[in-house]
């Protein structure tokens, strides 16, 4: 039971440090540690399937999306100086300590498999699948529709470009420069009528 409280403390500390950190990449590192801690809590509570999903989807896919956006926004002259600053130990020592606590805890939990789980009973993936595709089938379909809508919306928002950018592109094309090369300008040579 003490491992539960230790993991909860790690999660809360990582979230607090995420809020208080000024740099976006520091905050993302702390957020990843927080999600990993929540995944360990799920494992302790007897939900191993959801723990795996948490690591894969939250700490994997969503964080990769965040880091990708931060990477795209941070392009510029300050990138080299920032790279140098990122290698200082003050940046990675905090998340490393919290992640090391989590790693030690997972190793402890896996090596002592005979320790009784604090949960009343563990709910495996089989029961979850049976319930998910039984009474909750409509919810699964609605989730897929929601994801489809999000995909279309993200595509539309990323496609549409502001008038200012468009004026720049038109101006550069009038001067005979090729509009390609930049991520923002990609596809600018298409006709504006098509979506």
């Amino acid at each position, binding site marked *: 039971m003490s491992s539960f409280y230790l993991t909860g403390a790690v*999660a*809360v500390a990582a*979230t*607090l440090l*995420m*809020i208080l950190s000024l740099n*976006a990449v520091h*905050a*993302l590192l702390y*957020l990843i540690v*927080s*999600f990993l801690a*929540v995944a360990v*809590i*799920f494992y302790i*509570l*007897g*939900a191993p*399937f*959801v723990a795996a*999903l948490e690591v894969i*989807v*939250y700490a994997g*896919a*969503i964080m990769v*999306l*965040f880091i990708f*956006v*931060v990477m*795209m*926004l941070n392009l510029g002259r300050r990138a080299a100086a920032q790279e140098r600053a990122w290698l200082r130990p003050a940046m990675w020592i905090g998340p490393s300590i919290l992640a090391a606590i989590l790693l030690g805890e997972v190793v402890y939990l896996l090596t002592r498999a005979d320790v009784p789980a604090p*949960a*009343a*009973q563990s*709910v495996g993936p089989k*029961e*979850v699948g*049976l*319930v*998910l595709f039984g009474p*909750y089938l409509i*919810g699964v379909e609605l*989730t*897929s529709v*929601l*994801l489809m*809508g*999000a*995909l279309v*919306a*993200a595509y539309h*928002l*990323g496609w*549409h*470009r*502001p008038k*200012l*950018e468009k004026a720049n592109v038109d101006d550069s094309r009038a001067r005979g420069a090729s509009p390609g090369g930049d991520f*923002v300008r990609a596809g600018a040579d298409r006709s504006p009528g098509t979506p």
Partner: protein
Amino acid sequence: MFALGLIGLLVRRNILFILMSTEVMLNAAGLAFIVAGARWGAADGQVMFFFILGLAAAEVSVGLALVLRMHHQYRSLDADLLSRMRG
């Protein structure tokens, strides 16, 4: 956890941090569902977490597309700048 996410949402003015705090709040709601499911030994809590996961993925994709759009237009990530928007 939910309170921490809410504090982050209110305190920070950078829109990237606001999005991250929303993720923390959604995660806290899922954690509450999992704890309730573990307490009564039912699989419904995990199913609800599954739905929250899909919701968070959809929300973060649209939100990050908006962030990219805002950065292209305003060259900044300050959420207060958006109050100048006129529909």
